[in-house]
């Protein structure tokens, strides 16, 4: 292996790693606030570029109808004035899509907002009712397990729907910026890197400095306590899902010109995000992000040596991660 190949592998690792990092951050965020492990994040991520491709092709994507259907369910679940948000949001989304058919630049915004709307509706329709039904404090482990089963079920459903909506083909949307910054790194790749750094930094500042960010984390610790302090836990969950979906959608839109987009591709990306998140114990944002870079690096080099198995070998990284966590853990959790 010479220096050029080494350099290319590093660039590849960096570019993939930051995307895994973003997904890992989104998952840690959602987990911290709602205890949901967001398995379908990969599908949300792929829905953005695929919807974009459909819009650019002059068609309304099936994801729009999915989002609107969930929006109606969301509105039905919300009594009173709260129902205005899903209804107005859904109507606005629909108009935006009609506009995007005529004005292609709007398509980016439409695809982005679609995924955010879908993400929030997913929380509101599928997870929030489970949370409301679970008794405060008691059997929390059982609730987290039920969330996880729900999340995996949604992953399967969304992935299947992705096939129905977009077919099995891969699509490559045009990059936002053309050309290469240097050999092996396109300007689009630079954009991905910059976005990742900005998003990671933004999240850090949000949780460290803003009162609202701290309130989100407080809501994760105790529903009752948060409510006593005037924080609505449902709102916290919705905000967490919105941020996570936004991050997923943006990464999807930025990444698709580099790696293609297809209905099945999000899952593996998300799974690698998990591996990174688990490296950070599903708790630590910086460790999760660094872990993601490690995952990218590991993947780059294994794909060089054993490309057929690279997707399987990534999960080997779980072994040391879990081992370290196990050694630190106490056997009994209250």
């Amino acid at each position, binding site marked *: 292996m010479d220096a050029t190949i080494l350099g290319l592998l590093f660039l590849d690792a960096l570019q993939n790693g930051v995307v895994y990092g973003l997904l890992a951050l989104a998952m840690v965020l959602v987990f911290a606030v709602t205890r949901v492990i967001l398995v379908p994040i990969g599908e949300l991520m792929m829905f953005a570029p695929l919807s974009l491709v459909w819009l650019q092709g002059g068609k309304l994507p099936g994801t729009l109808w999915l989002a609107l259907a969930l929006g109606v369910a969301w509105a039905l679940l919300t009594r009173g004035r709260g129902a205005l948000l899903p209804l107005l949001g859904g109507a606005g989304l629909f108009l935006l899509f009609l506009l995007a058919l005529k004005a292609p630049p709007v398509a980016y915004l439409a695809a982005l907002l679609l995924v955010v709307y879908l993400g929030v509706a997913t929380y509101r329709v599928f997870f929030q009712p489970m949370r409301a039904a679970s008794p405060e404090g008691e059997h929390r482990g059982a609730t987290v397990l039920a969330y996880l089963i*729900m999340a*995996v*079920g949604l992953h399967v*459903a969304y992935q299947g729907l992705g096939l129905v909506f977009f077919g099995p083909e891969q699509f490559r949307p045009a990059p936002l910026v053309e050309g290469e910054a240097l050999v092996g790194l396109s300007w689009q790749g630079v954009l991905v890197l910059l976005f990742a750094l900005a998003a990671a930094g933004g999240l850090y500042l949000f949780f460290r400095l803003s009162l609202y960010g701290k309130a989100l984390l407080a809501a994760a610790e105790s529903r009752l306590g948060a409510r006593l302090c005037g924080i609505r836990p449902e709102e916290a969950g919705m905000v967490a899902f919105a941020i996570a979906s936004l991050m997923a959608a943006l990464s999807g839109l930025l990444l698709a010109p580099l790696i293609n987009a297809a209905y099945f591709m999000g899952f593996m990306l998300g799974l690698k995000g998990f591996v990174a998140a688990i490296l950070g114990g599903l708790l630590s944002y910086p460790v999760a992000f660094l872990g993601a870079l490690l995952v990218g690096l590991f993947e780059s080099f294994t794909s060089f040596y054993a490309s057929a198995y690279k997707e*399987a070998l990534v999960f080997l990284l*779980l072994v040391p991660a*879990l081992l370290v966590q196990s050694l630190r853990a106490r056997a*009994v*959790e209250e």
Partner: protein
Amino acid sequence: MRYGWFLLLLLPLALSPFPFYLTLLNFFALSGLVALSLYVLTGLGGMTSFAQAAFMGVAAYATALLAKGTGLSPWAGLLLGLLLTLAFALVLGLLTVRLKGHFLPLSTIAWQVALYILAGNLVGLTGGHTGLTDLPALVLLGLPLDTPFRYAFLSLFLLALLVLALYNLRESRLGRALLALRGDALTAASFGVDPAALRLKAFLLAGGIAGLAGFLYAHFLRFVNPTPFSLEASIKYLVMAVAGGVGTIPGVLLGAALFTGLEDWLKDLLPLLLGRQGNYETVAYGLVLAGILLLAPKGVYPFLARFSPKGEGRLSKAEPLPLPTPSGTPGEVVLEAQGLKKAFGGLLAVNGVSFALRRGEILALIGPNGAGKSTTFHLVTGAIPPDGGRVFLFGREITGLPPHRIHPLGLGRTFQHPHIFPEMTVLENAALATYARTRAGFLRVLFGLHREEEARALATAYQALKRVGLEDLALEAASRLTAGQQRLLEIARLLASGAEILLLDEPGAGLRAGEKRELAHLLKALAREGYTVLLVDHDMDLVMGLADRVVVMNYGEKIAEGTPKEVQRNPLVRAAYLGEVEAA
């Protein structure tokens, strides 16, 4: 009648003219086995696995490769398959059972995906996506099981056997411990259950069952390829179990039957209805799973079970387990804390607290809210490790030991909010406490060789219930108890556990005046019999009338110790605590 499950063996006879249904019947039996493995994990243990299909795959490929490579009997393949599955489950389990609940299932997803990719890509070994064909048929007693009709007898027989074994498990110390672990690991550990070890064993059992199903699958189709061992397949089994009702054995099998029947129908019907090709059935699985979790989290079976005759519980007539005879002289120190310290971040919750508990006395730990009483309690019982200081039980140092190691030495505790398990009966809740005094392991339990010990455990529990006056409610669901009865149940549990030292965390909280008097009466009687009691409470009337000695804490430190009278006169105490009470 659980032996009724063997009536399933009549089904192949009834369906013999319909080869298609015979095949479905085999698939039902195989799905049922895998779904039952999830009953062990999810229904009992409160864990789950998204890798059950991968475990099947490991065993299926093992037996296929052995048969193709060596020509050995497929039964050797079963052995190899089970060993390999167990080895994989052991590695995965060891890595995750000590972690919080979600790490295990998350890791199983990764594990499942990785194995699936390997099965598809290690073409030289596994034949890639074309798979391995022409596997030998199983031969049982000279009879080749080469038709769905013959095979159904084997698969259904094994299914019925497994059902029996799992009923045995449910009605055993291990079943109770798993259920307890699911609800609340700390309570389970307080009665001697080692959570990590038990979870690992349950995971191994579930992996082994899936391995058995994989072996049967391979020799039924006589062909293996990666598809039936994918993540979607694992999720399908989970959907079956959850939709039917993962908390009960009939529910799980109902789910397996429903979905095996529906699957082919869905595969044909949905594309017709919706007009395009696509994995509609996986969409349906996902949405069904979501719908069940939202609308009927306990699955379909509970709705049916309402109409079935209620099972008559029996009370055991066996001899109770022998109580450890209290040895040693009254007044000797049995439990001693020296300079206990615990800080939570910057908050010094307990700072240098020492006290000694003497045999046969009732010692009360009191103090205003936030004084560190409950933390002290946790430090003594091992629920949290102290930052400094030492704890001795019967002269033996127990500092930093986990609760499940401390309990068997003779210390039992209750909780500030009663930690009882609503899905178990009152009797089972009490019987959970005999865990540390009984021995039957997984093998003995699965084969039903634990019955005698089990009967004695239940008798012990019943005796304890009698002692606190709950015997009439023994067979009721524990969820029906009032707050006061829950407190009594917790004490009965301690008595059944054989602990000599009873640590009670706010036993009077939530009780009516009459109930408090009865509680005080009971505790005094127990102390006279040689039990030693340490209690934490706010209720001055209860504490001052009950305790022989009182330790007062404030701001994490001990500020006074003595008889109730002495303590009441102590000016520090009056200022810190009683003064506030009088003022209020």
